[in-house]
């Protein structure tokens, strides 16, 4: 049993922190934010290179930094932060000591060594292979080694999380009932992470052995299939994790309760059952993969996972709407939304994350994951457009929103530059939305991804992309700058507060409580026309309309190109 001396009760929220867990949460979150900072600087340089009028970097640096950017943000930033989220949702929310802090330290150190090793390999110059490192192109051995070490460290983090759940259950630290919804969501993320890391090991360990000469041949198609079992499911960790964060912020800011525990939890379970299976949408135009399998894999598997996301897309704002209506904002369709705390960056960041993830990332992802439509999208700039909406506008923004709340609660500091913090989610969210949308537009017009020079300087032939595409790349460049300003604002506020912020005095209350008292809503007494959350339903129907229209527009566009059979 842990001693009470190892715990601290947060005077503002009543949350109970296990001190060794608290230290590890802080370290993981800070390591993640450092990688986000580096990745953001690289993103700026990449964005300025893809802006034809600026074309900042030379070719070798562009590809080098693109490799560093992809891994640094997609893998290192996100996963460090997710480990912090796992420890928070287990140890803190369950009021339980962290299982084996020593192992958690080992995991952290391995992740740190791994991420640094891979970055060293990249910056030495011999490993500009992109994060996907498609064979037979190869990187230096320590490029793979670093990734493997990082994965082992993350795996240890997952098991520490699971161990903590077991202890909490055994010691009844959170009572007799089920796990809190947020922890339940984190648990799904953790299970998917274990599957992901196993796939990563299956593909990266042989690649390392191949590189140092123990294996003579790596089949490039088999590599792609297994790499994407890893690459795709790693994105599902993010989805499950950031949706858990949405629910957490709904709980923190509004005291919201899910519309029903059952539906929200079933939706999380669907992720485990289907999401990681749906990796075929990355290999829809690869040779030798049958249409039957592609269709099975992207429909049965993928659409049930899509359904789960659509459910969360309804239940998260629905829970907020119910809580708001209960508090008296019960007039009309949208009073609850108008009167929401738009000046609180935790809320605005979370809500923008929801909108960007759904409308931009979600719809584009399903459309390009359609077997035939992928033909007119694969490997164009549309693809990074899509995933900057999901993993930056969605996951990253949600994590930023959570950080604003963690600064006083976990780090016990006051948020520095509150005025800047208030605007940050808007700057970043709008900048990223523009960036994503314009990339998607340019991709629709054929602009390739991972491409240094679309004017093809030095090539034997020439080709002119449509003027509209050039224009879109220009406005994409401008959005890059906006998004980077938003990203920098976050770093300034977060790093500033954590390292130089004023220690938070518990006597000083914020204008908003750091954790709202939870509300139990009688759904019969709110809303109208028999619908408890009519505003959310309208938003959902708007979403559906956009989805259906955009889906069929793409079929129409497909039907105009050359016949293929």
């Amino acid at each position, binding site marked *: 049993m842990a001693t009470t001396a190892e715990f601290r009760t947060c005077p503002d929220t009543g949350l109970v922190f296990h001190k060794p867990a608290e230290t590890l949460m802080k370290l993981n979150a800070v390591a993640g934010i450092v990688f986000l900072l580096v990745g953001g600087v690289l993103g700026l340089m990449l964005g300025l290179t893809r802006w034809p009028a600026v074309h900042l970097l030379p070719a*070798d640096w562009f*590809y080098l930094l693109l490799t560093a950017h992809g891994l640094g943000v997609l893998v290192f930033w996100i996963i460090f932060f997710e480990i912090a989220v796992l420890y928070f949702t287990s140890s803190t929310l369950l009021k339980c000591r962290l299982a084996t802090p020593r192992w958690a330290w080992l995991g952290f150190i391995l992740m740190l060594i791994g991420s640094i090793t891979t970055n060293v390999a990249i910056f030495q110059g011999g490993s500009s292979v992109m994060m996907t490192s498609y064979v*037979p*192109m190869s990187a230096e051995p320590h490029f793979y080694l670093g990734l493997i070490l990082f994965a082992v460290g993350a795996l240890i983090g997952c098991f520490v999380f699971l161990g903590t759940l077991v202890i909490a259950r055994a010691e009844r630290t959170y009572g007799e*009932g*089920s796990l*809190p919804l*947020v922890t339940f969501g984190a648990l799904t993320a953790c299970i998917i992470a274990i599957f992901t890391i196993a796939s990563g090991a299956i593909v990266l360990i042989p690649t390392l052995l191949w590189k140092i000469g123990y294996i003579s041949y790596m089949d490039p*198609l088999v590599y*792609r299939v297994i790499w994407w079992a890893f690459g795709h499911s790693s994105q599902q960790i993010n989805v499950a994790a950031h949706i858990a964060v949405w629910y*957490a912020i*709904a*709980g923190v800011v509004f005291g919201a309760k899910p*519309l*029903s525990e059952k*539906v929200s*939890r079933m939706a999380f379970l669907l992720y485990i059952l289907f999401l990681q299976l749906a990796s075929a949408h990355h290999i829809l*135009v*690869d*040779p*030798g993969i049958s*249409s039957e399998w592609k*269709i099975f894999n992207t*429909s049965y598997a993928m659409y049930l996972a899509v*359904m789960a996301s659509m459910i969360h897309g*309804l*239940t998260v704002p*629905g829970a907020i709407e119910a809580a708001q209506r209960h508090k008296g904002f019960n007039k009309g369709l949208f009073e609850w939304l108008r009167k929401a705390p738009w000046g609180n960056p935790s809320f605005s960041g979370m809500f923008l994350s929801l909108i960007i993830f759904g409308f931009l990332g979600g719809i584009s992802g399903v459309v390009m994951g359609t077997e*035939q439509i992928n033909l007119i*999208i*694969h*490997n*164009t700039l549309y693809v990074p457009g899509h995933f900057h909406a999901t993993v930056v506008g969605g996951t990253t923004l949600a994590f930023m929103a959570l950080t604003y709340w963690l600064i006083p609660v976990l780090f016990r500091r006051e948020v520095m530059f509150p005025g800047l913090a208030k605007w940050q989610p808007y700057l970043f969210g709008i900048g990223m939305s523009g960036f994503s949308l314009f990339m998607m537009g340019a991709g629709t*017009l*054929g602009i*390739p991804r*991972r*491409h240094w020079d679309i004017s*093809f*300087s030095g*090539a*034997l*032939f020439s*080709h002119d992309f*449509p003027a509209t595409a050039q224009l879109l790349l220009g406005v994409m460049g401008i959005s890059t700058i906006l998004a980077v300003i938003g990203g920098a604002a976050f770093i300034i506020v977060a790093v500033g507060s954590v390292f130089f912020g004023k220690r938070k005095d518990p006597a000083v209350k914020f204008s908003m409580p750091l*954790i*709202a008292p*939870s509300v*139990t809503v009688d759904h019969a007494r709110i809303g109208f026309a028999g*619908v*408890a*959350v009519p505003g959310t339903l309208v938003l*959902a129907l708007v979403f*559906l309309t956009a989805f259906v229209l955009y889906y069929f527009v793409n*079929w129409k566009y497909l039907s105009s*190109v*050359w*016949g*293929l*059979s």
Partner: protein
Amino acid sequence: MSTLSSPSERVWWKTPVERVELLWVGIALVWGIIMTIMMPYWHVVGKQNLSNEAYRTTPEAFAKKTQAMVDQYTVRTETERQFPVVAPPAGSDVYLIARLWDWWPILELENGKSYRLHLTSMDWQHGFSLQPENINVQVVPGYEMVITITPNKAGAYTVVCNEYCGIGHHKMIGKIYVK
């Protein structure tokens, strides 16, 4: 009892469901079924599908077949590198090599006619991206992919490489002419 604490009901799957949730689950399910049907439907009525015909191959075997086509059907050469422009008969098998960093040779096709296009890579992975049509397929070494193509507009088309293939990636462009 908020999202951050245990639900009041001990067993979560026995909790009541909100009506609007059921409605939305139903809508999402129907929409998923429609999208599922669209793909096989397009295989039946649509004109843009991959047959997924593919074979294992080697660079030598593929280069030999391509060379035979070039020897037989070259109509002229272009550029200082004497790139052959090949005009094979309609309905025939045509070959396109992806390699660091060209698409070889140039093909000259007839509008409205079909050709069996064979694609592979001699070295790393490449991306066949036909512009301005914007048709994109992955080109993987060791695998020969066959697609029956039917151009529907005359013009000079460009094949761009859209899978990163090293420092010369941006120079890797080729041509397909449709008369």
